[in-house]
């Protein structure tokens, strides 16, 4: 199971609607609205699906972008210390250039 913590940056007028929609999604847990435009979210899904699951959030109306702050797939490690995953860190980092907030 991958666990990803991120901020969802929305338009001010849509933040409530977005938060409701995200809360309704099974893989998501929200931790409130902050500064009127950020929703704190933690997503849980298997690592192969975590990207797709988060993409769904990006597609929501009113969502400007997401800022990833935490990602772990430690749970998927087997007893030999191996992880099988399609998640590419390199690809993930490439898609997400650094940003000045």
């Amino acid at each position, binding site marked *: 199971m991958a666990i990803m913590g991120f901020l969802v940056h929305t338009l001010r007028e849509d933040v409530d609607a977005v938060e409701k929609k995200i809360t309704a999604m099974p893989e998501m847990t929200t931790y409130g609205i902050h500064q009127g435009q950020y929703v704190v979210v*933690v997503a849980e899904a298997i690592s192969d699906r975590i990207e797709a699951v988060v993409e769904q959030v990006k597609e929501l109306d009113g969502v400007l972008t997401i800022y990833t702050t935490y990602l772990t797939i430690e749970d998927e490690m087997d007893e030999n210390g191996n992880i099988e995953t399609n998640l590419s860190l390199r690809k993930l980092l490439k898609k997400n250039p650094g940003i000045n907030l």
Partner: protein
Amino acid sequence: MKLTRREVLKCAAASSALMAVGGNLSSVMAADDGEPDKWVKAVCRFCGTGCGVMIGVKNGKVVTVKGDPNNHNQGFLCLKGALMPPIVYAKERVTRPYIRKDGQLVPATWDEAMDLVVSKFKKAIKEHGPTSVAYYGSGQALTEESYLANKIWKAGLRCNNVEGNPRLCMASAVGGYYTSFGKDEPCGCYEDIDAATCFFIIGSNMSECHPILFKRVAARKQADPNVKVIVVDPRKTNTARIADEHVSFKPGTDLAILNAMAYVIIQEELDNPRFYNKYVNFMTNGKKKADFKTYMKFLEDYTPEKAEKISGVPADQIRRIAKMFAESSATMSFWTMGLNQRIRGVWANNLVTNLHLLTGHIGKPGACNFSLTGQPNACGGVRDTGSLCHLLPAGRMIKKPEHRAQLEKQWGLKPGTIAPKPGLHTIALWNAFSEGKIKAMYVLCTNPAHSLPNVNMYTEGMERKDNFMVLSEPFMDAETVKYCDVLLPPAFWCEKRGVYGCSERRYSLLMQAVEPMGECRSDVEILLDFAKRMGVDPKVIPFKNVDDVWDEWREVSSITPYNFKGMTRERQEKESGILWPCPTEDHPGTKRRYVRGEDPNIPKDYKNKYWFYGYPDGKAKLWMRPYAPAAEEPDAKYPMVLTTGRVIDHWHTGTMTMKVPELRRSFPRAYVEVNIEDAKKHGIKNGDNVLLETRRDKMVFPAKVSDVCRPGLVFVPWYDKDLMINKLTLNAFDKGSKQPEYKICAVRIKKA
């Protein structure tokens, strides 16, 4: 409470996100975010608005800019001004001299380059006389650079072939002011915007070419909804967004519209006989003094109905805008190239001024006929220093013996030093260069291989082997670099110190922010070196540095109405620009000229409120200028009108703005703006390639289909050196101002 491991990890994820929003976001940024070590006061490198800027310097490099809060722009900048820093460090910067050998520019030392330049100039003068050499300067050069070059050539080399690119942009405005008032330069200032109740904007896309002034006009309209804005332009530009009346007309027929407005103003009894009877002479086009009755008769050819036939503007609209203009308590007119770059540019300028003289909208807060200057220093640098072929510093003329004598005395020259015959104006000059009659030309801070009209003619001439061109140009990719014989590396904008004088007669000092790159030198240094090597009498060119040049110019101005002796360097360093005249060090500068109590040239006890001292009888002149068509009207073969202009993102030939990634990507290529109906007629869709043909050349541009241009008109911006629209434009010029008609020529279009 027992947390599963998973829950712990989830908490870690949530808290890391919360940390991001919970804390003070600005403190999340790196503590040292490139805050400058110092802020240096200067002026923007771009348009004639002349915004003050503060240049942020860190570790000896320009890192950012912000607006100067104490200059007229009150801290604001437009998009070009805000993005200047990367230009300074462009990789195309010329950082050392070059000499052309076997067709290629080869690096050289300063001595090698200057020795070659001087040998060519000396040879030309020896074999063909002083009229075989020339200087072609710029409204973007510093005042001290232009003043110095003017003196070196006219007093040192005794050559009056001193010209500059303001001939291509402001000459008609100069001619207009001269013929109307006997003196150049506007009589009001930017502050008038805050008091005006009607703005008449004609031949100007102010929102893209003078953005900060446009902002001030828009703010004025927001503050008082009764303020009226009239925009007269065959294109419905962004400027028209705030207009109460947008007047679209057949290109070139604005002369008829302006006369028709005068007709309506008189018919509606909105003219001001008290003002014009006392302060205005009515002049026929044949320079004969006439009277008001003659003027009324002249205007009978310009009833609104007759003007409608000529211009396509509904008579009703002409009546409306005439009334708006006259009924307001203070009307301010703005114009730029739409009126100036015409073979009837001087006439068009006169006709706008006429409306102000007829209604008395002059000399009061908010009332002014304000010609907007395109370049940052065409006023202060070229017009005021008289760096044109027929002028001498401070409004004096070469052809007048008393002016020559007066200047010779000021400069300590032997009587008769200044040649009595004016030199060649820009088009004539480049014609002569192209014919091999001018043997050596010094080009400073301008890009004639891109900016001259009908430019193929002139680039062919530049390729001749029997003429020599030395070019001072900061950017290797400027078009003119392809043709020069010697390329000199000048210090750029913030790497040197000197004055810019903007549209409102404000002279502001640019302080040097950083050291020049590589082997670059300021143009003042280069010119002083040139003069020394040419053997110019050191008594004529005694200056050690740029401040010496300024001090002499200050002194020279003091016996003329320009008198800005009070603008010492110390004052300039402390203040953010001062408006001339400014005769003494404690004088605050002059907002309104020709007005008793405001203009220091007028005694405080003068009998009249206004004194147009440019003319001996103290009166301004209202000229009866008729409508006359453009040089090349559309006809059966070339049925449309081609006009050129700028966009806000790019400055002139793009040598600077194309270095800023955002600006380059905003408008990477030229295009042709086609009206929706015309596009339909020709089967052209947005993005299609369109072939434009004039009698001079043809070129393919991608189409931008919109409702901006009126039907029958196409517009092409001129910043693209790979799609140079000046290959298609016409070099016919105004007989009075010698300014070319970039704005109108005949074209045909076809889907390519």
